């Protein structure tokens, strides 16, 4: 657990960077600090490992007052992933990763062996170990940065915009792997970003800071989207938050429609009876959906030979039965046939839903939430009356 107790930072000659911050980052969870540029995110992060000393207030790591620990000792026990990776250009990848274990006195050979294992853990081939950072792509460097922070197996990690310097596709990939890794490791993580989408995707808890270093709201991502505390948070969380909030709403049991399927390799001539409104769903031998076949447009002459993957429309996204309303709605909206494909846990075809069926679900859920909101607002008003 990391606990900020009324922490303020006033830089000499500057204004207040962080203003009376009270925040607790619970053990084993990801707490994201998000806010506009210059709102004091990095400063807050750096006060935890004393790279910046607070002007007033205390920061606790479990029951240890960080001000009472020697900075170098404190830092060796806290993983830190710096923006732009910040790798040492004069050391090989493996020696970069081995940095903290070596500082802690582990023999270099052992530290290196362990570093190679860590490279695999963050999704890099061991052969990259002998390269220098300048010989890696941006995404690879970020992974090495994460491996380096994990090397001494610290219980606490500080991450300052670790995925900001890469393109959106790589970023999404790094985020997914980071979540998978955290699922295995369960570190206590304080994560800084200025990207609200990243905050919502990664955070167990999200703390929104406003300019001047004041905390605007701390909440779970779902709560942040559905109940922004004020106009600033609402504006920061963004426009399509109503839609994005569906990403936190379990789809529950959707009314799945049965759909005849075509197996890849079947004769094209056999497909028309299995198409609905001109579209047939094609699956592989394991009943995993591959794509849609536009049967309606094909004349008798073209219906020869087998069904091959080249013929398929791959536009539709898949949603899982245990997924969210957002996934289900997206599956329906993106499907060329208008019927969203739902799969089971093993990726096998389970059934289809239409957008209007998903919307009915969404509307039903919203009306429950509205009722709850009315009741809690009423309770608040009653509590405020003398």
């Amino acid at each position, binding site marked *: 657990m990391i606990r900020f107790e009324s922490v303020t930072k006033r830089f000499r000659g500057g204004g207040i960077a962080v203003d009376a911050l009270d925040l607790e980052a619970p053990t084993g969870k990801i707490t994201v600090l998000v806010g506009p540029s210059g709102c004091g995110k990095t400063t807050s992060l750096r006060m935890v*490992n004393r*790279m910046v000393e607070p002007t007033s207030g205390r920061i606790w790591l479990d029951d240890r007052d960080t001000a009472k620990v020697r900075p*170098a*000792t*404190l*830092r*060796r*026990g806290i993983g*830190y992933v*710096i*923006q*732009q990776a*910040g*790798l*040492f*250009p*004069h*050391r*090989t990848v493996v020696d970069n990763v081995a*940095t*903290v274990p070596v*500082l802690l006195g582990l023999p270099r050979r052992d530290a290196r062996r362990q570093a190679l294992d860590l490279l695999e853990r963050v999704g890099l081939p061991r052969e990259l170990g002998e390269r*220098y950072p*300048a010989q890696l792509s941006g995404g690879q460097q970020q992974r090495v940065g994460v491996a*380096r922070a994990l090397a001494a197996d610290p219980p606490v990690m*500080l991450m300052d915009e670790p995925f900001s310097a890469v393109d959106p596709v790589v970023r999404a990939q790094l985020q997914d792997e980071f979540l998978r890794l955290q699922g295995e490791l369960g570190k206590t993580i304080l994560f800084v970003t200025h990207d609200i989408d990243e905050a919502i995707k990664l955070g167990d808890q999200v703390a929104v800071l406003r300019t001047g270093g004041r905390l605007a709201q701390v909440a779970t991502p779902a709560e942040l989207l559905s109940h922004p505390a004020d106009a600033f948070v609402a504006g920061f969380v963004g426009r399509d938050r109503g839609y994005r909030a569906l990403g936190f709403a379990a789809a529950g049991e959707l009314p799945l429609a049965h759909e005849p399927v075509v197996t890849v390799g079947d004769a094209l001539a056999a497909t028309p009876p299995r198409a609905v409104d001109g579209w047939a769903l094609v699956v592989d031998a394991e009943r995993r959906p591959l794509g849609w076949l536009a049967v309606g447009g094909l004349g008798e002459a073209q219906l020869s030979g087998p069904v091959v993957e080249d013929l398929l429309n791959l536009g539709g996204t898949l949603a899982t039965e245990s997924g969210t309303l957002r996934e289900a709605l997206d599956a329906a909206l993106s499907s060329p046939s208008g019927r969203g494909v739902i799969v089971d846990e093993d990726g096998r075809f389970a059934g289809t839903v239409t957008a209007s069926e998903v919307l009915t679900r969404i509307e039903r859920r919203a009306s429950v939430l509205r009722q709850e909101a009315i009741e809690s607002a009423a309770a608040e008003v009653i509590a405020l009356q003398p």
Partner: protein
Amino acid sequence: MNLWSYLQQHSGDLAGWTWTTVWLAALPLLVGLAIALPLGWLASRLRWTYPPLVTATGILYTIPSLVLFIVLPGLLGTRILDTVNVAVALTAYTVALLVRIVADGLSSVSTTTLSAASAMGYTARQRLFGVQLPIAVPVIGAGLRVAAVSNVSLVSVASIIGVPQLGRMFIDGSNLSTLGPIVDGLIAFVVLALVFDGLILLGIRTLSPWAKQALA
């Protein structure tokens, strides 16, 4: 007198001359580097010391070498023909050349890298010797190469004040009004400068395999 006969005539002196020339060029280089490192570090560490340090050493570099060779005995209490004068003068030049380069080299290490080192738990000392200095090696090394070549050529000037070393060939050549010894001397100094340069380059490459492309 041709190239060869002069060398034969002085074959007994050559080893001694070469040795004197080598250490006159090398020792000031090492001592100068040893002095420039802490001064350069100070200039990079405390910003306000940078202008006075760099200006002072810069002015030192503008003093003509001959003047320095002649003035130093008075300052040091040495005899006018003492080799110590030459060694001290060359050390001064090396320091003059390197202080700014060391300071700039150390400052050129990116703040991201330095922050990363601090965040990993390096003490200030470990960070200087483990991160900052190794990263500055190619820059400082490049400065050292310039200083080495300039030292070698300054040693030849020092022959005018009578220290017996390879520079003697120029004096002899001019006294005898013959080209042979002068060409001999020229070849000797060029070879010496190339050897110094090559050795330092080798040192940089060994210490900084990561900077291969940058040096090519």
